[in-house]
């Protein structure tokens, strides 16, 4: 398996790599060292603006910049980009459908020791409920680069969710379709159950599929990097084929991937569905592997839920 990289790190590197091709600017709220926009700031100090610890102002400033035709990337932790500045995202950015790209890092419980106040497991819910907002959460480094570039070419606001903890490469292999906003990527074909995963959980979904294969269960794995607009066509096609679905996300099972997939399938192709995610509780301090275990964000939990979904067929 290739080197691991946190998607926040890949985000910072992508901004640097794409800087000459696209004339965007970058804003941060005193977290550049952590969000990794510091990499861009170092190379392009004239295109980087620290807004201090004032995320609401930063988001509306970004709207003002975007209204002049320049695309801003706005970065903070997910808790503050989607949470603190929610209303500014809704009213300043999304209502006028401005070209603001929000790069939110430190999402989910893999923040680790900082604990519940900084572990945002609600941002998918907050962002996907806003009309016209595009919500993306890449699974690994290469997908992060592709998502950042796609967001730059996309007309309208985009929320990009990145993690603090390093993840292995899972989307760079041959046979994986090119990244496209709104199109899930089939990472593994299967017939018995579909595992739909996003962000940090994608590599764990692949591990779960390996474990299930050892037991003779053939799992399909979809990397649903774009939560909104959701790839209903792919979900329905896969659910029709396998007849059972498991969702896996580093987010509250309410309002995020589990909800979005449930809504889509309930309307179009109801099948037994199980959700893996944070089960409507706050996070806590701890080492990341301990936290993943504590909240059931593991390949073992995905495999267990897969079998439960299969057992519910007919």
């Amino acid at each position, binding site marked *: 398996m290739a080197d691991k990289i946190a998607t926040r790190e890949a985000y910072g590197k992508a901004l640097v790599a794409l800087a000459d091709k696209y004339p965007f600017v970058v804003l941060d709220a005193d977290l550049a060292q952590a969000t990794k926009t510091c990499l861009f700031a170092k190379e392009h100090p004239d295109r980087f603006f620290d807004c201090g610890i004032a995320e609401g102002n930063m988001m509306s*400033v*970004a709207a003002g910049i975007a209204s002049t035709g320049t695309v801003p990337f706005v970065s903070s932790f997910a808790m503050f980009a989607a949470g603190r500045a929610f209303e*500014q995202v809704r009213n300043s950015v999304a209502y006028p459908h401005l070209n603001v790209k929000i790069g939110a890092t430190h999402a989910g419980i893999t923040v680790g020791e900082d604990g519940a106040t900084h572990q945002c497991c609600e941002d998918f819910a907050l962002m996907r409920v806003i009309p016209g907002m595009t919500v993306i959460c890449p699974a690994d480094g290469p997908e992060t680069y592709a998502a950042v570039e796609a967001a730059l070419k996309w007309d309208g606001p985009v929320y990009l969710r990145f993690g603090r903890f390093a993840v292995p490469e899972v989307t760079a292999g041959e046979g994986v379709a090119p990244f496209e906003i709104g199109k899930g990527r089939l990472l593994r074909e299967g017939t018995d159950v579909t595992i739909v995963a996003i962000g940090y959980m994608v590599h764990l979904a692949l591990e779960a599929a390996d474990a299930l294969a050892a037991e003779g269960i053939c799992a399909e794995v979809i990397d649903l990097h774009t939560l909104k607009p959701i790839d209903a066509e792919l979900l329905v096609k896969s659910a029709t084929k396998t007849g059972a679905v498991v969702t896996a996300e580093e987010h509250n099972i309410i309002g995020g991937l589990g909800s979005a997939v449930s809504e889509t399938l309930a309307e179009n192709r109801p099948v037994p569905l199980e959700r893996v995610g944070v089960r409507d509780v706050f996070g806590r301090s701890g080492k990341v592997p301990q936290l993943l275990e504590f909240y059931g964000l593991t390949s073992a939990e995905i495999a267990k839920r897969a079998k439960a979904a299969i057992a519910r067929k007919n």
Partner: protein
Amino acid sequence: MNQAEKTVLAETANRVRIGILDGVYNAGCGHPGGSLSIAELLTYLYFKEMKIDPADPKAADRDRFVLSKGHTAPALYATLAERGFFPVEELKTLRKIDSRLQGHPDMKGIPGVDMSTGSLGLGISAACGMALAGKTAGKDYRVYTILGDGESEEGQVWEAAMFAAHYKLDNLVAIVDWNGLQIDGTVEEVMNPTPHNLKFAAFGWNVISIDAHDFDQIEAAFAAARQVKGKPTAIIAKSVKGKGVSYMENAVQWHGAAPKEDLYRVGLADLGLSPEEIEGRFKQNG
């Protein structure tokens, strides 16, 4: 400013006030008090100060205006219509289901609106973004925003104040409409945000205090703001809420209420319309 020019501006501001009343009366709701208090400021901005072209409302190098106190949209719409961005007749469609004149300014649908506003405190930040983008791109356009005095109770206003001073946005002018009233009472009673002059000065702004209804003072303030380098300018504009309509002046209940027919007639008379002109309006309105 010579007397003739001042007379023309005063007549324009009066027509803006009539447009505010027409809009709010026909909508049956809206925010007349804080709209009437900024008629001279908007008139001066759109007829003298700002580099704008109603025929090309999205021109890249135009000056920008953000109505941070977005609930006073009737004043902005009346000014834009008077300036030729859309027909004055359209003001009567304010807040109606098939109208583009939304209850609060919508930049996607209304020609001449540079930023969607309405949620207080957000507009001044957006104006900062426009000013920063202009400086970064080496453009010489200027950005203006009008805030409510009550609006300055929002913490984001002071985040923006810090930001504008930090980035030396001398192409930005923020005007505080100091009419002294907000929904629940006087600003002093509700949550005293004064003194604005000392607060903006402490945040690193150039501060000018004026009478919001005096065109000479308005002109002098904008001229002075242009001369200041390295600092944004705050104009603290003491105004009369409901200015020009007798029963609305300094009356808190007219913050967000529309007059019925009898008081609409009184208001139009206060603004100098003859009995015939007022009758004609009702015939026109069907």
